[in-house]
């Protein structure tokens, strides 16, 4: 049985707060780059970018990009071949910028580890921050998020499903028992 943890309006509010927090910690929108991790992280990054432009009308237009981490994963040999997705960096690059990585769920931290390696091959940012919609715990690496939509303590048997309008048609975060764990 799926339990809805965040509704449409909760997601919007969380992203609005994260956008404000990003601007506050960066003291404005200068030298800011928002990089979403495909697939849903890119949608969230675009929404945060739009919010930032609303809050600070003088913000540069091209601050949002996507960062595919497929080629940097440490579990490639344990799955069938994955199709990589698009990496697009804003035209000014990331050198000397503050890069905010955006993903939907923070879990083991391995995706973020891969993303940090990928960033290192693209340039040398001044700082890298992490924004996630949901932090569900169970980290396997020393990584933490700077901006969190919702902390959601969960069991490893549970699945977190993030659904976003642009990709899934509806908008919610739900939690259910993973298939196979139901007895």
């Amino acid at each position: 049985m799926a339990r809805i943890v965040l509704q449409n309006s909760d997601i919007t509010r969380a992203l609005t707060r994260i956008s404000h927090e990003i601007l506050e910690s960066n003291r404005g929108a200068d030298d800011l780059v928002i990089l979403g991790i495909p697939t849903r992280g890119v949608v969230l990054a675009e929404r945060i970018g739009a919010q930032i432009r609303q809050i600070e009308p003088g913000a540069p237009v091209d601050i949002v990009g996507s960062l595919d981490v497929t080629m940097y994963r440490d579990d490639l040999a344990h799955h069938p071949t994955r199709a990589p997705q698009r990496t697009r960096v804003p035209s000014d690059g990331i050198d000397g910028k503050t890069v905010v990585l955006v993903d939907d769920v923070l879990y083991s931290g391995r995706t973020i580890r891969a993303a940090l390696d990928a960033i290192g091959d693209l340039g040398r940012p001044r700082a890298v921050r992490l924004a996630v919609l949901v932090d569900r715990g169970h980290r396997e690496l020393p990584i933490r998020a700077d901006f969190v939509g919702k902390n959601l303590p969960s069991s490893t048997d549970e699945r977190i499903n993030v659904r976003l309008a642009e990709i899934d048609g509806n908008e919610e975060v739900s939690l259910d028992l993973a298939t196979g764990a139901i007895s």
Partner: protein
Amino acid sequence: MRHLLSTRDLLREDAIGLLDIAEDMSEVQNREVKKLPTLRGKTVVNLFFEDSTRTRTSFEVAAKRLSADVINFSAKGSSVSKGESLKDTAQTLAAMGADGVVIRHSASGAPQVLAQSGWIDAGVVNAGDGTHEHPTQALLDAFTMRRRIHGDAARGRDLDGVSVMIVGDVLHSRVARSNLWLLETLGAHVTFVAPATLVPVGASTWPVDIRYDLDVALAEVRPDVVMMLRIQQERMNAAFFPTTREYARQWGLDDERLLALRPDSIVMHPGPMNRGLEISSRAADSAQSTVIEQVANGVSIRMAVLYSLLSGDREARS
């Protein structure tokens, strides 16, 4: 995908998948660090029984950009010239722990034998076998066409309705064969133009228009793509045409034919070119020519192929 042996049995979605991965790989070529850690710890052997600097180098660059270790094993001056069989060579490479083997061989079907023999568990990439196939060349050609035609919106697209004219020595050309099968799969329409002596027996059963007069064909078809094949002087062991001058006059892409092309047609050549024979210098260096792009795209395509063959779980791939 376990091996890449031919384009004839490549499914449409697999072909488009490879072209899309190559788009991502080509973006890596523009970065400061042109290297991905993806195949770290994997070993790729370039097993070349035929001379080839361009293809071998391209595979070598591709494998190195993915952080694989590359071993170049060429037949000249090796145990092969001392009479070692393909089986013994393969078992030697297997014992050394090769994960991927890129093979070029003068015998059509040699890569197939290697892949199906059980002598070695590695993924096999055909880098040209006899007059049979050269799949990565066809993929890089299709990639180049797709980019020129669709630009930045190329991802996910096929070559539906594109008209491709392949001119020259079709008889000896594995490039022409691989291109035909792949282009057919991607929805393009292919015309071969060649002297009658350089059209293979049985080509009339292939999904291709065969013509003999280049000027008439160019005027009637008005192709989107003209691909000139190299006259392979090393394979010209019989008199297929009277003289090279006559060949150049009748089937070469000279300045006059270049000017008569549609301004948006592209001119391709797999290289190495015989300037003044099958292609004039002006055609080779014109803005319509994709010769240099083809070389750059070759690295991206070969990275995509090596990634698809070697990165995933081996059990799940077979």
